[in-house]
């Protein structure tokens, strides 16, 4: 660990948890291994979010599941492959000090309560409910697009834990602010925005869709302006901490999200080109930033753009 932040000038508060800095791993990126989480922590990450976990193990879709589109954008339809609640609670069972949010995905209240009951005794910070994966049926966005289901699921998770709950929203066919409002009313403490956007890529030589699932989710540089907009709108209209996500590839993007209203910022696709050390690089740059701007704490910039 080579970040010396004596004044905690980078620490941020998400509901009642404090992160040493605002950088987080986005769900689904390197998100199934405790050893990797420990490596990321050595790289000065603020917190990690795990791959979205379901009750039963899921193999996901056949390959191709991830396509680099060029220009720092990616298309994926991994299909929520994950080892399931039991194997994954074993994976995290020895966790001591890594700040982990477990991402949850499922179709029914029963599934969510089963998972939270299993996970809640682990050393974890909280949960992120994935209501926005755009390429798996009866899960993710298909739940997010049904406000009644969102209400019930969030209430169920709330009943089974006292830890903070973030709800991850995306650009689906329910307005993002509406969806966030329903989640907050049902007991969520934090909103994560955004997930990938439904998209597709076709190879013109073979004339075939490239992803095995044909349709997947767009991430990376392409979606940053959409993520910034969602964070700005949600944080402006609702009194709730927001975690920004989408297209972050440098400290400048972290700052832009925070100015838009994000308390913390998740980083995903860019790991494809920059590797885990990007967290260390960004954290160092953020430390420089607060020094140069003479900020006591980086939170001073959260939502500043709302003034204008």
């Amino acid at each position, binding site marked *: 660990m080579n970040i010396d932040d004596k004044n905690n000038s980078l620490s941020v508060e998400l509901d009642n948890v404090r992160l040493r800095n605002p950088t987080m791993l986005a769900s*689904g*990126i*390197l*998100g*199934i*291994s405790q*050893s*990797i989480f*420990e*490596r990321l922590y050595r790289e000065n990450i603020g917190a990690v979010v795990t*791959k979205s976990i379901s009750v039963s*193990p*899921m*193999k*996901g879709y*056949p*390959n*191709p*599941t*991830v*396509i*680099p589109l*060029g220009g720092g954008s*990616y298309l*994926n339809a*991994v299909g929520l*492959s*994950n*080892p*399931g609640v039991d*194997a994954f609670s074993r*994976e995290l069972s020895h966790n001591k000090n890594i700040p982990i949010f477990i991402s949850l995905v499922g179709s029914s209240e029963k599934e969510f309560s089963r998972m939270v009951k299993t996970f809640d005794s682990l050393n974890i910070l909280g949960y992120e409910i994935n209501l926005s994966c755009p390429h798996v049926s009866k899960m993710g966005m298909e739940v997010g697009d049904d406000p009644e289901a969102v209400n019930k699921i969030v209430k169920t998770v709330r009943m089974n834990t006292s830890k903070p709950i973030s709800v991850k929203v995306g650009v689906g066919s329910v307005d993002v602010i509406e969806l966030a409002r329903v989640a907050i009313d049902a007991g969520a403490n934090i909103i994560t925005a955004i997930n990938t956007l439904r998209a597709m890529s076709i*190879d013109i*030589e*073979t004339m*075939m*869709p*490239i992803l*095995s699932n044909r349709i997947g989710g767009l991430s990376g540089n392409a979606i940053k302006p959409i993520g910034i907009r969602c964070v700005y709108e949600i944080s402006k209209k609702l009194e709730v901490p927001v975690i920004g996500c989408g297209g972050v590839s440098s400290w400048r993007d972290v700052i832009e999200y925070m100015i838009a209203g994000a308390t913390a910022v998740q980083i*995903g*696709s860019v*790991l*494809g*080109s920059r*590797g885990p050390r990007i967290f260390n690089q960004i954290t160092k740059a953020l430390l420089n930033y607060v020094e140069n701007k003479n900020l006591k704490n980086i939170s001073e910039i959260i939502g500043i753009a709302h003034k204008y």
Partner: protein
Amino acid sequence: MHTSIDTRRIVRIEEIVSETPTVKTLVFKDDLSYAARPGQFLMVWIPRIEEIPMSAMINFKEGYAAVTIRKSGVGSTALFERKEGDVIGLRGPYGNEFALGKNYKKILIIGGGTGLVPLLRLASFAIKKRLNITMVLGARSKKEVFFEKMARKLLEPVRSSVKICTDDGSYGLKGTTVDIMSTLLRNNTFDCVYTCGPELMMKGVVDLANKNSIPVQASLERYMKCGIGICGSCCLDSLLVCQDGTVFNGKQLSKMLDFGISYRDKDGQRICYS
């Protein structure tokens, strides 16, 4: 125009070589694969069926490369069944590479099966540096031996020796690659040992090299989805085979809890090697 390694190239299979009844080499033209470094892999797309990681096999024609497939599950079988003239997609090459130390003079290259693919590319680089190369090709039995002619032809220009071994002694020396290696170590000093093949074989090679304090490098495999450090499916302890590997050195390998012990399945569950 400069093509990025991430750009999907659609290439036509121009030639197919049957290496054994279950192993074939598919040859195609692709500048980026031609220029691959030893240990690097391609993500090979079999349209509407699968995309699988494959080491970049050498080919003697300029601008050409190949993949050598062992027929196994859905993806490799589909690739195995491609005909001349069929197209496949490629991205990559990805990953790091076997390192040839500046003052190395004599090296040992040791592997088996399709693990020979990156080793032959390594040999082709080592030849340019005119190193003294000993290459051991292991197989379970005679009918699984392949690449022998290729290896002999490749190594001809330099001081070298090519040894074949089979577990059952049906061809070449009798014994495993690790047995042959320990024999070799008695009368030779190698600057480095390079290995690729079944993980338990590599484990044996690495342990033996470490015990003898000889630098060693191994190219590993794990189940891969993205090939570029995003999905996490190829994790090996805290490392990613696709981004931090495929080549790891003896020091890294000796600290690993997963190497030779366990890998992750498609859903990310940890599975132990039997």
